[in-house]
């Protein structure tokens, strides 16, 4: 292991390291801790220009309560879920199939199709912006959740296919050959043999895509407006406009908006990290 394991170092460094850890983490998260502290301060603390003292009393419940009762925030959050979950299902489904095709079969253009998916996944959003916006308007899907979902599914399919294909490539190929010898049909091989083995990849991708789509801001601004369809990333700007300089509310709103992917991460950490490393770093 590198660096030298702590057990093999001097006693002073061991103590030093153990006490350095919490200090480092606090320093690293300082900007966020400040916001968390703001969000539990009562409004009176701010009117006095007193930003940095300890909260005079715990006002977390009323601040966070107001985020849900006095603003369209619940609507935005619901929109975010209604955009994110169908996208995850769609992108994972499409890429399971595409990854199966590219990972199992040898055929002409295999690598070309695969590289096209990878390349497409890396292009800047702006080169797609105008045509995708026009297409969405023409289809009558501007300012609808479906319009966003369809685009997200299409775009995420690039990344997901890269991931799925590499995962399937690493499966034992003899399994598929044995199945063919048994006379099992190709689609059954996909459904009964490969798909069950893909469960960890599906879990990893789902968590990751959930986070990506939840956090999307650009497409939300390009394809939607107003509380009817906007997800929370775009909605937070109107939320901020509503509350102006009420920093306790702005902070509470930001934390609410950020929370779902954070919870997802802490609950599904292992899958999340497997996804992030693109399955390439084992």
């Amino acid at each position: 292991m590198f660096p030298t394991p702590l057990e093999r170092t001097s006693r002073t460094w061991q103590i030093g390291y153990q006490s350095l850890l919490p200090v480092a983490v606090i320093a690293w998260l300082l900007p966020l801790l400040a916001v968390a502290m703001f969000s539990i301060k009562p409004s009176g603390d701010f009117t006095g220009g007193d930003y940095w003292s300890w909260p005079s009393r715990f006002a977390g419940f009323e601040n966070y309560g107001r985020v849900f009762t006095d603003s369209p925030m619940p609507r935005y959050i619901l929109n975010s879920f209604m955009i994110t979950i169908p996208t995850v299902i769609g992108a994972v489904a499409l890429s399971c199939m595409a990854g199966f095709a590219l990972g199992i079969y040898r055929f002409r253009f295999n690598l070309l199709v695969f590289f096209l998916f990878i390349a497409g996944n890396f292009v800047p959003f702006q080169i797609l912006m105008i045509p995708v916006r026009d297409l969405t308007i023409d289809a009558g899907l501007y300012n609808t959740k479906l319009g966003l979902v369809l685009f997200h599914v299409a775009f995420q399919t690039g990344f997901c296919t890269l991931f799925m294909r590499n995962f399937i490539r690493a499966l034992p190929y003899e399994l598929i050959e044995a199945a063919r010898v048994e006379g099992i049909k190709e689609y059954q091989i996909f459904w009964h043999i490969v798909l069950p083995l893909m469960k960890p990849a599906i879990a990893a991708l789902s968590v990751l895509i959930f986070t990506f789509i939840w956090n999307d801001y650009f497409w939300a601004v390009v394809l939607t407006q107003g509380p009817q369809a906007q997800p929370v990333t775009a909605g937070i700007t109107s939320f901020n406009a509503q509350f102006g300089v009420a920093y306790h509310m702005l902070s509470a709103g930001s934390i609410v908006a950020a929370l779902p992917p954070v919870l997802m991460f802490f609950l599904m950490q292992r899958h999340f990290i497997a996804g992030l490393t693109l399955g390439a770093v084992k």
Partner: protein
Amino acid sequence: MTDTTAAALDHSWFHRNRKTITPWLFLLPAILFFTVYVIYPIIQSISLSFYKWDGLGEAEYVGIANYERLANDRAFTVSLVNNLKWLLLYLLAIPAGLFIALFLNQTVRGIRIYKSLFFFPFVISQVVVGLVFTWFYDPNFGLLNGILGSVGLGPINVLGDPALATYGIIAAGLWPQTAYCMILYLTGLNAVDPEQIEAARLDGAKGWRMLWHIIIPQLKPATFIAFVVTIIGALRSFDLISIMTNGGPFGSTRVLSFYMFEKALSEYGFRMGYGAAIAVVLFFIMLFFIAYFLWSMYQDEKGR
């Protein structure tokens, strides 16, 4: 020929060619979606960049006029230079991520929680990161000036100063990006061959020499991915700029992705053709890197 034999023939034709047809059937939905929403729009944007179009009326063909105008557009030059700053400074996330990963690569109690907490910023949306850092930099109550003040410096208005604003935004972007690189390296460090390390230790290698000659070469796959995601992240920067400064002060924090958006969907009338031309420039910058990534991946594929 009776119907039944035709069906049988049909079935056997499919049966004989099933290994050729099946992959394309499985690929069909993905290719369809991807073509409609990604491949075709790229071609449309490139073509649109030779037109003048307000998004409503007829588009008017203007040849390379949009590109000629770009050459004399100061806002475009500023954006391009800022993109370069983003690219170069964003790469700092890689050594910073490695440093933190090395720091955290121990097996003490509770280390998993510490790793998660360090990774935390990456999971938060850039919009919230932008808000958090806007308040962090705030000249009136921001924590930064509080800290600077306590050591007798400041106050500075990071986002209000055209000379500092871009760097302030990049610093905010480095926060989650460093976290991402850190996690890549932590996973990579897990896979480093312990026998090589022990062998090198017996040979008297340690510290920097060990890191440079033994560890970093073995982290190459992690470094490659860190490089890819950092370059892409740098060129994609939009959310932070939009939230933190909206391109200001005096347009000093614009980058191509932001400037394109601003032009195409401007409040003063849509300039789609000009916007498309900016997007095409950004696309070709990105294409240069994409080509390199694909080439590396291709070498890898051949090697298998």
